[in-house]
């Protein structure tokens, strides 16, 4: 009897956890299919599949352009972070030199910067480069978010590779560049996929820089576009549109995360528990 009771309590706990985790997004999906006054009635299940909100999101603002901007920024940030991260991780993970530990701690320190602490300096620099109101400026700005943990995680992975591999390559007279690209790169793919994904998500979600460094609707990235969707008046937010836009930008990320679940968890823990 007591065992059954315990089992029941555990099942209840698990159900509560799943509901807690999934319900808000589920409710956003349900709401995104409601138009007009349907929104003002609370339904726990979708009753008709009305795609009007989805069409309206693209018709009423340059949302396709916003998505393009976000993809561009996030993809470029991933490419640059991985390139700089791999070369940096080789030096930090495989070569012993004076000041290495200090350097690693400094890089970790950068990941603790509050974004707002670099805001005015970054603003000045972005204007100086003529990148204000241009998604390209966000690529540069976002590097502060992604580069430290990319270097950190790749370094921990790189350090764990067997030393014999590198020695064999050295005996054959391979240069460090050849060692990184031909010997380590093939082995580092899993780690690169993980950090690349984490960097993509960080850049895709970034809000403060995107809000401050862009001005016009067609230069914005999706988070800013969604945050600034407004209706006829300030008190009349078009919740249907907002929910539809939210579902559009979130589904691909959720899909990515679920597909690469294990890799992401290992990346998060490598960055935190080990780091």
């Amino acid at each position, binding site marked *: 009897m007591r065992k059954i009771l315990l089992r029941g309590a555990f099942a209840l706990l698990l159900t509560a956890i799943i509901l807690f985790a999934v319900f808000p997004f589920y409710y956003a999906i349900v709401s995104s299919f409601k138009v007009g006054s349907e929104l003002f009635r609370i339904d726990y299940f979708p009753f008709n599949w009305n795609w009007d909100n989805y069409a309206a999101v693209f018709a009423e603002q340059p949302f396709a352009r916003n998505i393009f901007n976000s993809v561009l920024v996030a993809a470029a940030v991933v490419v640059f972070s991985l390139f700089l991260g791999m070369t940096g991780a080789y030096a*930090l993970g495989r070569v012993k030199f004076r000041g290495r530990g200090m350097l690693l701690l400094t890089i970790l320190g950068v990941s603790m910067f*509050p974004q707002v602490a670099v805001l005015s300096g970054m603003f000045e620099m972005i204007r100086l480069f003529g990148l204000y109101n241009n998604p390209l400026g966000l690529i540069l700005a976002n590097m502060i978010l992604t580069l430290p943990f990319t270097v950190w995680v790749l370094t921990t992975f790189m350090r764990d590779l067997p030393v014999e591999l590198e020695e064999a390559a050295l005996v054959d007279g391979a240069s460090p560049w050849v060692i990184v690209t031909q010997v380590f790169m093939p082995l580092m793919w899993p780690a690169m996929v993980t950090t690349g994904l984490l960097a993509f998500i960080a850049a895709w979600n970034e809000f403060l820089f995107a809000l401050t460094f862009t001005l016009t609707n067609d230069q914005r990235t999706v*988070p800013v576009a969604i945050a600034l969707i407004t209706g006829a008046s300030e008190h009349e937010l078009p919740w249907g549109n907002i929910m539809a836009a939210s579902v559009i930008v979130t589904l691909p990320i959720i899909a990515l995360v679920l597909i690469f679940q294990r890799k992401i968890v290992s990346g998060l823990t490598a960055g*935190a528990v080990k780091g």
Partner: protein
Amino acid sequence: MARQSTIRTEAAAVVTTRHLSLGRSRVRAAWLFLAPMLLVLLLVAGWPLARTIYFGFTDADLSDLSSYEFIGFANYLEYDEGEWYGLLADPDWWNAARNTLYFAVISVSIETTLGLIIALALNASFPGRSILRAAVLIPWAIPTVVSAKMWGWMLHDQFGVLNDMLLGLGIIAQPVAWTADPDLAMAAVIMVDVWKTTPFMALLILAGLQMLPSDCYEAARVDGVHPVKVFFRITLPLIRPAIMVAVIFRLLDALRIFDLIYVLTSNSADTMSMSVYARQQLVDFQAVGYGSAASTLLFMVIAVLTVIYIVAGRVNLGEGGR
């Protein structure tokens, strides 16, 4: 004999010098490989931070960043004709600081407790465990702005589903204005943050749990120790390092919170964090000097708290725990 040994010494000397030059060229290559990464880091982190700190001592204005005057500590504190001016005399700043600390401490405590519970549940074996693990990742994957909007809609005072649920359960008698009520706005922000970041906490603690040796547990089971005692005497002390690291990562995030508060409750004074305050000064009021001073102060607060936490908690962050 003597000749042989000289040859040997010479050979050894040759080997050593070759080894040395190899080592030296390796270090040179290492710095070459580091250079691009360090340059970018200097460009996007070092330089802007230095400029922000410098701007904090000026009266710079956003409309024209090229002309400004150096005004010393006036942005921080200044005494003029019987009155104190500057950040440290600004009640709004202190309100933001109080809000941020309150938010950070409360949300991280709740997240740690819930994260621990979820991690313990995920650590047990039961059918459908992978589904649960996947479900838990969903809030983490959702962009902060999107979760703020989703919850903003769920917390809507007239048409929100949360009010509907609580009314249905009889917990509240009439609809509540979650984000507008000064007493509840902060609770609403904390609720959303807990929902969004507990998964991160749970996964980090779970990783710690999975590294625990199983023999202590077997010994405890053989001795018939009560599970609750096992948890407090064995599990908790063993995963303390994992929890400490997870907590500091979350605390640092919580102290610089911006997106969630800005989107959920806008510039409302009830929930304004230090980041929101600094950005409001910088961008909305165009006071780059004053805003930079606030940003610098926030940076200092976070740096000092981090050092205190690492020293007091004896958290091992050096060289990946080696």
